[in-house]
């Protein structure tokens, strides 16, 4: 069974990065693979992707933007910029991101990790000359991936529907408020246009390996991107603890499916499962889409409500924490 992995020295470094969170994130954000030519037709709804038709169009649009704008500029950047400078630029923006990582460590109550990441930020900002050199890596402080979307997941906010945003790429209902917070907590957001532009170039250039991999391995680039994005986010949010049981369930589901079909209940079982997930799957094709959309909107609204509630909960928790400290 094929796996997503490296080939040779130079490429393996690239492919490695495919797996490092930043790259997949950036890659997917700028995802580039042709989806044109695929006949648009209503498909069996995926419960996490009720807007598949809209999302596919947006994916196609982003792909065009990438092909005609982002990729040429990024290639030019890579051509004129020496490798050590590209690495420096990557390290610089990565270091700024650590401000947000530390905040989210604390919000998720990962206190020892927050101490490590603070150390990482401090070392790289000083000895690493403002973040240009990743000195912390050499003293054993690995880069951690934390962001506000993961914090919301830890607080119990459901993921919501999968959405492909214009230019920004894959996200979820929970990912949008997450991204707003992440942007606010990144110092790079508060400087002028040239810095922003370099930041974007850096993101696209670092995504190169991942984009190439999608191009090589994907039969349906849209689905490939969606699945790897959702799995990658889930893996980050659960710190890698979700995988084994999920996969076991997948296998089991497949076997159950076989049994179901044998007894002639296969497809109706599918519909029931969809309903349980809060997705109205009407057999009437005309009303199907409308009902799905309205349901998904309410689920998005619900996610926002839950987010707000989680904030309140967190507030109460902090109060309680303060009190218990005072008592001590």
């Amino acid at each position, binding site marked *: *069974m*094929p*796996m*997503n*992995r*490296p*080939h*040779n*020295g130079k*490429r*393996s*470094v690239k492919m*490695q990065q495919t*797996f*490092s969170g930043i790259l997949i994130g950036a890659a997917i954000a700028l995802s580039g693979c042709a989806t044109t030519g*695929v*006949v648009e*037709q209503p*498909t*069996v709804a*995926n419960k996490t992707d009720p807007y598949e038709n809209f999302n596919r169009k947006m994916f196609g649009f982003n792909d065009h933007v990438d092909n005609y704008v982002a990729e040429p500029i990024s290639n030019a950047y890579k051509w004129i910029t020496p490798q050590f400078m590209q690495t420096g630029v990557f390290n610089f923006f990565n270091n700024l991101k650590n401000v947000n990582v530390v905040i989210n460590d604390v919000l998720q109550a990962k206190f020892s990790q927050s101490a490590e990441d603070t150390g990482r930020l401090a070392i790289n900002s000083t000895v690493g000359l403002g973040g240009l050199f990743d000195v912390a890596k050499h003293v054993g402080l*690995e880069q951690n991936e934390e962001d506000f979307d993961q914090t919301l997941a830890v607080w119990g906010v459901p993921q919501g529907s999968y959405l492909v945003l214009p230019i920004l790429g894959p996200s979820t209902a929970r990912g949008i408020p997450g991204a707003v917070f992440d942007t606010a907590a990144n110092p790079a957001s508060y400087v002028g246009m040239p810095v922003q532009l370099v930041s974007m170039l850096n993101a696209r250039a670092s995504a190169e390996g991942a984009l190439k991999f999608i191009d*090589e*391995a*994907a*039969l*349906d680039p849209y*689905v*490939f991107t*969606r*699945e*790897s994005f959702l*799995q*990658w986010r*889930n*893996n*980050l949010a659960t710190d*890698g603890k*979700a*995988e*084994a*049981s*999920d*996969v*076991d369930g*997948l*296998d*089991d589901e*497949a076997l159950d*499916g*076989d049994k*179901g*079909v044998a007894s002639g209940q*296969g*497809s109706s079982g*599918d519909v029931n499962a969809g309903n349980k997930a809060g997705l109205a799957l009407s057999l009437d094709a005309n009303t199907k889409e409308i009902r799905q959309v309205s349901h998904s909107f309410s689920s998005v609204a619900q996610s926002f409500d839950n987010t707000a509630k989680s904030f309140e909960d967190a507030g109460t928790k902090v109060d309680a924490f303060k009190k218990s400290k005072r008592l001590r």
Partner: protein
Amino acid sequence: MVLKNVKSAVVFMFLLFATVNAFAVEEGGATARQVVEKFQADLIAVMKDGKKLGYAGRYEKLKDPVSNSHELTKIARIVVGKEWEKLSEEQQQKLVDVFSRLSIASYAHNFKDYSGESFVFDSEEETTRGGVVVHSHFVVPDDKPVKFDYMLKEKGNSWRIINIIANGVSDLALKRSEYTTILQREGFDALMTKINEKIDNYSKQ
């Protein structure tokens, strides 16, 4: 004296059972960990000769290791989900064949050459449904290691790989989404064409 005899009898019995057990393991074929480690060793060996072998050579050398360690028929069946039942017997056979070729081809393409990489075993755990997950990681010099978790199921008296999870991304789940989507949107022939295109691309690079 009697007590001593009883003691030695008990010890003897234990030893007897222990030997029997040891034999049972040997006769029962390889354990899940052994299957994974054998496959990883074969893969590293092919990588070391990768340049010399070329794509065709790597494909030939990996054919048996991949087919013997992976449960390719079952994987092909799972990745098309409920669509499997809708396929004719001939189509099912074709799917298994093409899918097996794709699996070997992508290994041959992705594991081109060697620059000090190695696999390290981390741990092993049983899942609730009688499977075993072997956790390992792939060490790449000067880079972050990639986590590789192999999910295995028992087949006959041996274990076979049924899924690989690389840094949390499940190959089986990813393929399943892709294949079922293509089958539903474009049909069986389109799926076969697309897989064959991928195999062609792998062989060219």
